[in-house]
């Protein structure tokens, strides 16, 4: 494991990706200490960038830099939340289904297919209409997580199925280890790096999903996210009026964040799977 880590640290693309990702996380966590984040209405609508408001203001006259910091925090929160939920659920059910096979596998398959065919935005609309308090960021994260785990389940399932026949696992089973023990002690460690890569991708997809959901007007009502910034830019005319600061910085931040995660993923793939090495 330490060797893999050492190899990872030797990979320039991993360093770039991780660097970018840590930079955004650091920005989200530390910037509020250096920059006075103020989400209040402070200036006229879509005030242009100036000395006081480095990236101008949004339609309500809120400082765009503050909005972006807050939005970045929200996006990271949603990404990590969906990542954890989807990876945990997907890994647990995927390993179990792949390892056990039989009707359990068929059932897990059915459930994964089911989530594949019901778009998450539909679930979100239907659930949010039944909650009087309205949509919160956490709710959106939960729903994205609960509707995208099937993807990880499918991926893990295939891996687990291929591990099943390996000697040491067969041996463990013959020696009477129960399923749970075999899964957690013998299969999971083998999949750890793979699961981590899935987690990275799920975080990225969570961030993109949140932005997409916010874009169609189903974003969180309790906070600012990068998606709601984009949605506002479109709906409140900043985009139509050609104010680049209304949507460009948010686009760049999402792209950089997701790009960083993608690079981390591919560089890990390169190290874990030597065939990809050049």
């Amino acid at each position, binding site marked *: 494991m330490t060797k893999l880590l050492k190899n990872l640290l030797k990979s320039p693309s991993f360093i770039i990706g991780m660097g970018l990702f840590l930079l955004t996380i650091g920005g989200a966590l530390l910037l509020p200490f250096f920059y006075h984040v103020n989400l209040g209405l402070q200036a006229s609508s879509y005030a242009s960038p100036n000395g006081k408001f480095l990236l101008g203001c949004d339609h309500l006259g809120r400082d765009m830099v503050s909005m972006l910091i807050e939005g970045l925090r929200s996006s990271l929160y949603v990404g990590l939340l969906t990542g954890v939920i989807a990876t945990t659920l997907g890994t647990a059910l995927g390993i179990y289904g792949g390892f056990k096979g039989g009707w359990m596998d*068929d059932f897990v*398959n*059915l459930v994964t*297919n*089911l989530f*594949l*065919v*019901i*778009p998450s*935005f*539909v*679930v979100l*609309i*239907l*659930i949010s*209409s*039944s909650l*009087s308090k309205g949509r919160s960021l956490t709710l959106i994260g939960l729903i994205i997580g609960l509707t995208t785990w099937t993807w990880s389940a499918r991926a893990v399932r295939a891996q687990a199925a291929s591990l099943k026949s390996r000697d040491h696992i067969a041996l463990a089973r013959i020696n009477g280890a129960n399923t749970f023990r075999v899964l957690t002690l013998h299969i999971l460690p083998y999949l750890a790096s793979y699961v981590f890569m899935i987690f990275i991708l799920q975080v*990225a997809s969570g961030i*993109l999903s949140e*932005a*997409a959901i916010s*874009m*169609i*007007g*189903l974003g969180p009502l309790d906070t600012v996210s990068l998606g709601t910034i*984009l949605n506002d*830019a*479109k709906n409140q005319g900043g*985009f*139509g009026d*050609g104010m*680049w600061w209304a*949507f*460009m910085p*948010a*686009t760049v931040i*999402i*792209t*950089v964040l*997701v*790009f960083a*995660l*993608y*690079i981390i993923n*591919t560089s890990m*793939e390169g190290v874990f*799977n030597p*065939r*990809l090495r*050049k």
Partner: protein
Amino acid sequence: MLKQYPTARYILHRGGWYFLTFLVAVTINFFLPRLGASNPVDIIMGKAGSGLDTEAAREKEESYLKEFGLVQVDATGTILRGPDGKPLKSSNVSQFFNYVKMCFQGDFGTSFQKYPKKVTTIIAEAVPWTLALQLPTIMFGWIVGNVLGALAAYRRGVFDRVFFPLALLLSAVPFFAFGMLLVYVCAIKNGWLPAMGGYAGDLVPGFNFDFFKSAGYHYILPFFSIFLILAGGQAIGMRSMGIYELGTDYIKYAKWLGIKENKILLYLFRNAMLPQLTGLALSLGGMIGGALITEMIFSYPGLGMAILSAIQGQDYPMIQGCTLLVTISVLIANFTVDILIGFLDPRVKAGQMGGN
């Protein structure tokens, strides 16, 4: 049963699972909205009733309740009432069976928002636009992405070193943000191309050159907004599949045997493409969901726009109808690819037919 027809058995087996999925999806699709507190008639009345006084509003409300089958009626169509004079609500179960019956007759009910338009009519009007935009774009993006990905995997070198990060970056851009960027640069700032709509404002759809010319002109930006990002994503997938296949024993063996390079590339492409077909199925199935935002950015007519306004107007029959359509298209796309892969890949076929 059907032991002597393994192919038919295989198709039936896969189809059976898909059908079961379909049934469960229909059920969920029906009951989810009804778990919520929202009542569609309240929403209509909120808008329709604002000019009316209280009694007139109540009468109007009852006529809508009847129209949408939310209250019990007798044989003559009179609303049945409880002892307090209020209409008796029809049960969820009876509504469900009614709904299933209607679905099988191809009737998804009446839209709340576009009342009295039928959901099926709305869908039929919108689907061609969505298909015309999405189908060629997805197919084209998929093919181009895969060819480039396979080349990058096989050739590596400088091409790969430039191409790969570019594709990765492209696939990291949220596609709607990319669409917005395109509109900003090409339409709002420079006016090269129209910012929105499916055809010019002074035309009516018809079989004439002007209409098609205008439609083609309006097609360019939405096309590229989907195409580039899709191709980028596919290329990345194909590249890593290709590299994976490149390391397999059969490719090594083919090289040892001295088989021609383009033949090996063909082996590689064909086998790496198989898992990519699943990706194609997902893209095609998810086409309607994906159309939502693209059509919104470009104010493009189509099903996505119809769903979006249904979402905003809480038009449940419309949302349900569209969800059902999404469900069916995802299932059909997956089923087709499942069967297709079964035929293209002897391993899958043998495995699933219970062969070796």
